[in-house]
């Protein structure tokens, strides 16, 4: 279709060319060079180029690509990069550079200056990405011979975005010349894909198909799957068939309803139309005569049966066509066979089926692994969000509803630091300790000012910290506004670790996973191997006894709370990096975090880990079962947790002994 005859664009092109001639005659006084041949091609296709629609642009691209002019590749490239402008006064194509509020124009080939023009006197040519892909495909022939390997690879990308049969010869020639082994390998793959799609020789195609066994690239599957495309065909039972049949469909089963089957017959002209309810009603209305239809009073036509009967009477009177009854429809259907038919030959489809089955098997395996990675990733986010809470809740028995707001404070800290330190890597490195320090201080302040007075009154702690949470959230809104603020990750965290096209994970998620592992280990170390940890554990188990041993429970409580809050701050930076920074960032995690702690078992770091893992995997699992509704996954998960707590009220890792009563 892209190879549409060039004539299509000719009539307007002639006009433009004429205009250009006049221009050449009239403006000769100016010092500008007349259009070069390649410019002339642009001018000839000016209308198409300015219209810039993928459907009509083909001839213009072809004209340039097949012109054989050495500058054609450059012009195509400029065009693709949106660096071509049209001067409205004479329709000439120019390059333009912004200078103040005006443009400085230069010749597209020579770069010779062509004066200035105001913004409204030139039009930028903006090929959309569909056209860009087409230009890319046209550029392939030039790029395959480019000395720069990067450009040659770019050519392969062009092939992939918009493959054409004409690429095959050029590519095959290029493979032989290629010196770079990496590029050659890529070329070979591209060549085999093109072979599958465009080669005439069936044996070559089959060989190429088989060569892709076990290949996980999406583009490989994208090449193979279309070979298996089928269309529904219908034939009379008696008619012979040599079609390559994928499967035979039985009406009334496999989601292929009788109605659908009959519809196909009607569309094929093999069966008469059935009168629809709407058409029936129309016919009845049309036949209303003095308050009745075919002798039936209109007022009684308020059921389907009554209307059907009235229609039959009309049909009997010969006023409307007869309609087929359901039995007649069944009988008719029995005369036909419905089949899904391949459009490729059996040899090709067999080879493809074999290859693709093997690929799909591996893809399914990797997708399961991908799901597991997603689960781990979500679990580590929940773990990060909840671990601070686990410390304050588990160790001190204090429920801190403002925990989510500490997470938010950490995220905003990261945002503010990025305002001052533009370097993304450095700013994150600075942000982590600063966020810890700020939320540590906030936690200590909260403990000293509020929570200290409410020990042993957990419900009131819960309420008071709610108050703090409400105030902090609104405060954040007043300071930063309600709009999401950016917290940009450094470039080296930007991409994804792509193992293959079915299995990949973004670096930021890996970083969060690593961060949570570090936290897990550090906390484990602090609680089990340090003096502070010992004191924390002793205060948790028996504050009075600990006090009698010379430990200051006040100090320990303060530090523990600070630690828990500080971790929330760091979690905030991490969460902000992969999502968004808003004032209700933390509120979105607070219920989930409590669930994590409660499910895991209060006061145990292992418990939090187990809780986060369970919830993370569960949520991803439910999402995978019901991919079109993420919301439902959350509902079901909460219901699961409510039920889970019925059976293990103290969580997966229940503490034994006195501590459990705290």
């Amino acid at each position: 279709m892209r190879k549409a005859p060039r004539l299509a664009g000719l009539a307007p092109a002639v006009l433009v060319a004429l205009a250009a001639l006049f221009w050449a005659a009239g403006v000769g006084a100016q010092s500008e060079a007349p259009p070069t041949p390649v410019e002339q091609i642009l001018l000839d296709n000016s209308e198409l180029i300015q219209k810039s629609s993928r459907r009509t642009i083909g001839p213009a691209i072809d004209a340039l690509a097949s012109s054989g002019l050495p500058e054609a590749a450059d012009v195509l490239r400029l065009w693709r990069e949106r660096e071509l402008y049209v001067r409205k006064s004479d329709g000439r194509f120019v390059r333009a550079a912004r200078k103040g509020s005006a443009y400085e124009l230069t010749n597209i080939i020579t770069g010779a200056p062509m004066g200035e023009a105001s913004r409204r006197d030139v039009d930028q040519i903006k090929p959309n990405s569909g056209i860009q892909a087409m230009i890319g495909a046209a550029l392939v022939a030039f790029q395959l011979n480019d000395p720069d390997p990067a450009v040659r690879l770019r050519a392969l990308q062009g092939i992939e975005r918009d493959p054409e049969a004409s690429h095959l010869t050029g590519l095959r020639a290029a493979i032989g010349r290629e010196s770079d082994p990496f590029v050659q390998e890529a070329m070979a793959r591209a060549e085999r894909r093109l072979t599958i799609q465009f080669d005439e020789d069936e044996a070559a195609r089959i060989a190429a198909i088989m060569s892709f066994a076990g290949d996980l690239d999406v583009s490989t599957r994208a090449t193979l799957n279309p070979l298996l495309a089928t269309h529904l065909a219908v034939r009379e039972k008696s008619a012979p068939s040599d079609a390559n049949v994928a499967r035979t469909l039985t009406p009334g089963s496999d989601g292929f309803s009788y109605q659908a089957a009959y519809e196909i017959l009607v569309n094929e002209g093999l069966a008469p139309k059935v009168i629809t309810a709407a058409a029936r009603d129309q016919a009845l209305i049309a036949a209303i005569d003095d308050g009745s239809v075919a002798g039936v009073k209109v007022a009684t036509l308020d059921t389907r049966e009554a209307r059907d009967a009235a229609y039959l009477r009309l049909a009997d009177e010969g006023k409307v066509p007869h309609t087929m009854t359901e039995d007649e429809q069944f009988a008719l259907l029995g005369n036909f066979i419905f089949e899904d038919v391949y459009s490729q030959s059996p040899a090709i489809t067999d080879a493809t089926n074999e290859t693709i089955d093997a690929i799909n098997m591996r893809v399914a395996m990797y997708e399961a692994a991908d799901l597991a990675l997603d689960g781990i990733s979500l679990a580590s986010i929940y773990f990060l969000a909840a671990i601070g809470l686990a410390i304050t809740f588990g160790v001190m028995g204090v429920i801190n509803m403002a925990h989510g707001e500490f997470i938010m404070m950490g995220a905003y800290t990261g945002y503010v630091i990025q305002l001052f330190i533009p370097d993304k890597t450095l700013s994150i490195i600075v942000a982590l300790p600063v966020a810890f320090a700020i939320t540590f201080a906030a936690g200590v302040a909260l403990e000293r000012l509020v929570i200290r007075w409410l020990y042993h009154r957990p419900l009131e702690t819960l309420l008071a910290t709610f108050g703090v949470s409400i105030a902090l959230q609104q405060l954040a809104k007043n300071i930063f506004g309600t709009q999401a603020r950016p917290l940009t990750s450094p470039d080296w965290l930007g991409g994804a670790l792509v193992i293959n096209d079915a299995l990949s994970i973004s670096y930021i998620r890996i970083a969060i996973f690593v961060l949570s592992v570090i936290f897990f280990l550090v906390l484990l170390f602090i609680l089990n191997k340090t003096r502070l940890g010992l004191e924390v554990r002793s205060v948790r188990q028996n504050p009075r006894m600990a006090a009698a041993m010379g430990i200051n429970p006040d100090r320990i409580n303060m530090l523990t709370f600070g630690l828990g809050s500080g971790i929330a701050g760091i979690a905030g930076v991490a969460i902000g990096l992969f999502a968004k920074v808003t004032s209700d960032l933390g509120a979105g995690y607070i219920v989930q975090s409590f669930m994590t702690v409660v499910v895991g078992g209060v006061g145990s770091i292992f418990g939090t880990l187990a809780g986060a893992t369970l919830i993370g995997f569960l949520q991803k699992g439910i999402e995978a079962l019901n991919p079109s509704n993420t919301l439902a996954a959350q509902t079901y998960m909460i219901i699961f947790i409510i039920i889970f707590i019925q059976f293990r009220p103290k969580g997966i890792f229940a503490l034994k002994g006195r501590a459990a009563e705290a």
Partner: protein
Amino acid sequence: MATPPTNPTMSERGRSLVRHRSFLAQPSTIVVMLLLIAFTVSIVSLSEAAGGDISTSLVKTLGKTMCLCLIAVAMDLVWGYCGILSLGHFAFFGLGGYMVGMWIMYARTEAIVVEAARNAPLPPTPQEIRDAIGTQIFGVVGGSDIPPIWAFAHSLPLQLILVVLVPGLLALVFGWLAFRSRVTGVYLSILTQAMTLALSLYLFQNDSGLRGNNGLSGLQNIPGFEEVPQSVVSVAFFVASAVALGAGYLLAAWIVSGKFGSVIRGIRDDEPRVRFLGYQVEHYKLFVFTLTAIIAGIAGALYYPQAGIVNPAEIAPIASIYLAVWVAIGGRGRLYGAIIGAAFVSLLSTWFTGGRAPDIHLGFYTIQWVDWWQVLLGVAFVLVTLFAPKGIGGLVDLLVRPKRQASAGQPAPREAAE
């Protein structure tokens, strides 16, 4: 700097000495009832419908506030008296609204459809009417079938029964599961919060069959009363809300006055001890939880036709938290405290966020209450929890029994989840 909080149980104990009087004879009950009647009568007689100056929108606001007071009374009963800090009672409130809303929407749409079909050349089949209703109600959310949960929506009595039944059953099942496995204290609070979150997320989905995020709207137009002006409808609902509040208050007062009341207070103060005394603690808690859920449902059923729209945002966890804030600020453990708190805070909140509160100019910064009201509320709430656990209701004690307050010994307070 901070005085240790006073002990609410002391005054309770004091009051229990005089509990042989009927709850009807208690001064607080009598005062509340008289005030309620006086307030209702004066508002009705001054309303627009009666030719007075009180605008319909104010009548609606006051009527809604009555409903909020009613759910606050329920909250006080379950938290202030029984010690169960439920952070999910707005789920029941919302469900009540949904149940009555379903009938309003269905009946109103049916009337429209039947009216429209009257002009059609053929009399409509029942299926056509049903389809048209489905398209009308669910067309805006991209559907057209009437989901099965709307099976009773055509009948007002059935939906009214559901107003009581649905929140009641949900509370019964949830409470039974929770209390049976001895989930108490903050665990229970978090669980109730999870319940309301789950319900609101569920209702947010279009597939829930209750129009997702849009919820049910146009509820102020009561089917069959389309011709009655809103000024009259609003007064009717105002009076109904007042009656419901009065009845709810009397019921709650009656419950907490007798032996039952002593037991649930006992559960609040020391649950294991009450259990050792041979009481089926779980049954008591379940009863109170379910009863208050039903009261909340009724309050919601009266609230939303005045608000005009019920949607899942209404039952987001934050709403139930505000409910706890109201009761705490008003003073829990006393029923009139809940009413004071709900009325005071919600009306104040309306005033502050309504843009009518004057801005405070500090020279370098202007405090706009629209922005700062929430901060003030949060801080005030912390302060109340810390320094005035009796809330505004505590002021009444200062007026009525200044001596007892001054002489009370102040042992360390004990709370439910100790």
